[in-house]
């Protein structure tokens, strides 16, 4: 087999392994779904009345883009914990002693978690539709919206993988994988419009990759009110381009970092 074919075959095997592990832990899938459904309901009903959205639109319409992005971003905490867990159990020693591709362990992890993110996104979409969300764009644009979510999720999963390989225990991974996601997702346009933030925070939020992705997803789903003028920041004026660039930058940084960490991880 050629190197590339071997690499793909190894990635397939590891993806299968991780998905099988997930399937054997139906409770973790269940709680993943419950969590995402719960977020949609909480935000839609608790904050729905309190938050003024641009154009006086229905908050659920505004919310869904944000909640999709937040939930897929949070999936990287799962990756982080799974990585740290594998590392602590000696499974990686076995993998590293095999004549297999070095990157397959990470690629297989992130692909499996991407599938998991797909399941939770589906659950959120159904919940959203039930509480009054709908898309107002072509099927192709909706599809593009989900594709962007997938790209963004995949990029973020690599951040989770790198953190999971960097911490020294599963307990630390549980916190380290999650904690930075709170300021990152809340200091964005995911749940509140940028215009409602203090002026010093607005540029920070505008250049937050989460904001670009949220804006692009809202655009693609047709959830931006007619006549709404996006804030005068380049990433929000060109959200789709900015989102794709952000994802590529994240991947370019974290994929090599992850592979390097993986090589070194077991030598600690």
């Amino acid at each position, binding site marked *: *087999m050629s190197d590339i074919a*071997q690499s793909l*075959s*190894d990635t397939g*095997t590891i993806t*299968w*392994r991780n998905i*099988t*592990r997930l399937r*054997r*832990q139906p409770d973790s899938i269940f709680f993943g779904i419950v969590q995402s459904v719960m977020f949609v309901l909480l935000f839609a009903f608790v904050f729905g009345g309190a938050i003024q959205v641009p154009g006086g639109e229905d908050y659920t319409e505004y919310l869904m883009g944000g909640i999709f992005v937040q939930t897929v971003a949070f999936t990287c905490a799962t990756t982080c914990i799974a990585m740290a867990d594998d590392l*602590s*159990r*000696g*499974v990686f*020693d*076995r*993998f*590293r*002693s*095999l*004549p*297999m591709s070095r990157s397959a362990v990470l690629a297989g992890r992130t692909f499996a978690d991407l599938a998991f993110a797909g399941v939770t996104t589906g659950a959120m979409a159904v919940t959203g539709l039930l509480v009054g969300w709908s898309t107002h764009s072509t099927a192709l644009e909706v599809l593009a919206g989900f594709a962007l979510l997938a790209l963004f999720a995949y990029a973020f999963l690599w951040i989770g993988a790198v953190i999971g390989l960097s911490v*020294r*225990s599963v307990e630390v991974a549980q916190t380290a994988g999650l904690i930075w996601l709170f300021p990152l997702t809340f200091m964005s346009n995911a749940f509140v419009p940028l215009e409602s933030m203090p002026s010093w925070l607005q540029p920070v939020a505008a250049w937050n990759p989460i904001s670009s992705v949220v804006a692009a997803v809202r655009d693609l789903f047709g959830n931006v009110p007619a006549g709404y003028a996006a804030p005068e920041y380049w990433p929000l004026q060109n959200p789709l381009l900015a989102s794709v660039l952000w994802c590529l930058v994240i991947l370019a940084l974290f994929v090599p970092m992850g592979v390097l960490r993986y090589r070194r991880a*077991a*030598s*600690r």
Partner: protein
Amino acid sequence: MTAISAEGLVKVFPSRSGEVRALDGVDLEVPVGSVLGLLGPNGAGKTTTVRILTTLLAPDAGHARVNGVDVVADPQSVRRSIGLSGQYAAVDEYLTGRENLTMIGRLYHLGGTRARARAAELLEQFDLTAAADRPAKTYSGGMRRRLDLAGALVAGPPIIFLDEPTTGLDPRSRLGLWDVIEDLVREGTTVLLTTQYLDEADKLADSIAVVDRGRVIARGTSDELKAQMGGERLAVTVGPGHLGAAREALAGLANGELDVDEHARTVVAPVAGGSTALLDAVRRFDESGIEVLDIGLRRPTLDDVFLQLTGHHAEPTAGGPEVGTAPSAQEVRP
């Protein structure tokens, strides 16, 4: 023909209190088809040696060749000719035994059909067929170790590394695993095994390298090591309050240092002359009125070897000063 060779392996780990020299110049040579037992206490550097030879860790100095290939220059080729079964059974507990082995076969690029056939074969060989389709988390400790060892054999590698294969197993599982390892050796596999159990090295290894504080401090066959110790051992257990007197009585008889276990009230003395020494000792005890509960001659064990070489016992449970007091970063996973 040499299957495994190592020259001057050095590995230094950073630690809070400076540096730990986990390996301080380890030399090894394992001929094809033989079993080398790496014997030493926790923290001696056994696991670090195995991790370097199996390409998991790069040495800071020295060279190692496995199956004729340098482990640093061409790790991927080395990986194709080795199997590793670790101290921490690297079994995926959510996968079944069969899935675990099939996965490893695929990662060795055997292809789906061969990987499945090989898994079935190994499950049969390791007496796991009945449990083959149950998740490994339902397995007992002994079954997990067997599955882990089976994982090391999937590609039928000519060289196998077993890092403390029986640590933490109950005696029956231990004996079962010994049988499996002996079968492998009969089929011509080269084995490097680490252990802290003297009886294990004695039973399985053709030759033994005694490791302490990152160095090989003695090597040879079990018999050679014991022969180095000179003659037999006279062991006596005395009644309460008689230990001091017994020690004095034996001091004149022994041709080496006495090993005194206060707790068990036992004195072990290396002696020359065998039964003459025994009669002499009995006479002395009788004259001094020492209450003797048990007395006898025995051949030196590897524990005696270890004690003589290092000044401490090999097994922590054997009493004596605490062993492995050197920081053991290489044996403890974060």
